[in-house]
């Protein structure tokens, strides 16, 4: 490839990357503009909350429970070396509340919810259903995007809360089987070290993750093109981009919360 041709390829790639950032930003701004304008599609939001929340319960229950149990099992030997197994409930609770529950729920939801939103809207785009809404004087952005983003922003924090409880139950089961700790003693010990800042941080993370999963899935689906190939691409990139952003948000939120902790 000649140097000039190479330069052209790089310039095109930089152009398309900048354009993607600009389009993403415009979509983000449009969401807030549309969200606070006109009447809310409440019944559609409730329907989406059901689709996102209720249908993810089984998966979240299973992964949450296993995460709590396995984390407890893996942490025990290290604590046992220092004769500190009595700290196990506190350690596990801190890990679950501060990081694991929110992250596990977000990653599972990015896969399940994000891909489903991306594929659904992508399919509606390529089959002209979104155009059909526009020409019948209905605002498709408000009906499809705002409802899904609001629903995921509401539902994912609830799922995180649920995942926290299920993970703690998994941890309790492991502790009860090995140390014979009672239910009450476990939870008293577990919550001793949990502060309002931990809970606040977890809620903030959950809201940020929920919003990210919703907006990324909607953006990819709403802007899908090139037929069925575009639908697959929208679903796939919804998951990849959501997960990438979730990890970046995790780092930022942890840094900010640690600043307040000190």
């Amino acid at each position: 490839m000649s140097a000039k041709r190479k330069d052209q390829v790089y310039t095109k790639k930089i152009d398309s990357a900048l354009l993607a950032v600009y389009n993403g930003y415009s979509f983000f701004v449009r969401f807030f503009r549309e969200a606070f304008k006109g009447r809310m599609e409440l019944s559609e939001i409730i329907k989406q909350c059901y689709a996102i929340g209720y249908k993810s319960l089984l998966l979240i229950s299973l992964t949450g429970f296993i995460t709590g149990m396995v984390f407890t099992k893996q942490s025990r030997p290290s604590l046992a070396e220092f004769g500190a197994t009595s700290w196990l409930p506190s350690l596990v609770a801190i890990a679950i509340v501060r990081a694991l529950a929110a992250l596990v729920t977000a990653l599972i939801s990015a896969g399940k919810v994000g891909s489903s939103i991306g594929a659904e809207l992508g399919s509606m785009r390529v089959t002209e259903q979104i155009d059909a809404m526009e020409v019948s004087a209905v605002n498709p952005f408000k009906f499809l995007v705002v409802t899904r983003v609001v629903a995921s922003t509401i539902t994912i924090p609830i799922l995180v809360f649920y995942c926290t409880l299920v993970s703690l139950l998994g941890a309790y089961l492991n502790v009860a089987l090995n140390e014979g700790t009672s239910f009450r003693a476990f939870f008293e010990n577990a919550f001793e070290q949990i502060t309002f800042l931990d809970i606040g941080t977890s809620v903030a993370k959950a809201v940020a993750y929920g919003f990210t999963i919703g907006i990324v899935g909607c953006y990819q689906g709403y802007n899908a093109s090139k037929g069925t190939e575009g639908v697959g691409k929208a679903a796939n990139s919804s998951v990849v981009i959501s997960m990438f952003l979730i990890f970046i948000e995790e780092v930022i939120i942890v840094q900010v919360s640690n600043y307040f902790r000190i």
Partner: protein
Amino acid sequence: MMEDFAKTGEHVIEIRDLYKSFGDLHVLRGVDLTLEKGENVVVLGRSGTGKSVLIKIIAGLLNQDRGDCIVLGKEVSQLNEKELRELRLKIGFSFQNSALYDSMTVRENLEFPLVRNIANLTRAEINEQVESVLDAVGLLQTINQVPSELSGGQRKRIGIARTLILKPEIMLYDEPTAGLDPITCLEINQLIVEVKEKYHTSSIIITHDLTCARETGDRIAMLLDGKFLKTGTFEEVFESDEPRIKSFYDYNFIQ
């Protein structure tokens, strides 16, 4: 060819010197067209000549690069969101693939634009209007079915019914007979004629099906290479000696 010309001379659509390109692909290159009130104009042309692009510009789904597209006295590209929404209430758009909402039943598909555009309708009024348009397209029995349970012809009819529920003044049909068997094509052609008579609409019908053009159009506009090559009645257009028009006619096997 329809004999009943209920035209009034009033222009509901005026397109002047319209240009549209997608990158290096110049689709429309100076298109001029008028649609009179009560008239059905068929835009004929081969696939990829920009027929669908033309009606998408009319419906405000795409913006032209140059030229005027005036619908009901308003330049579409100059309208703000609210004005465009108001204009779209007067335009019905029947999509090539029907574009029915997969996740909704036929009833919900029809109710969707109605309840979002007309405030304070009672349940009885909604039911009455839904049943009335479904009856008009002869598919009242499908009211509780979902689109995946319908045939191609039924989907087209439901798509047309969904646009009729808002009682549009202008109907835009994108390939209404594409992918249908000949009998169903005739039924759809008949429906387009009935819609015009019953709902007093003016229509632009995009097609490459000459039977559809002959049955439904008062006037034919032949789109080739991004411009209208010939406009007139069906006979006027196809009596032309222009070789590209003759070859188009021959391909349709209806000599």
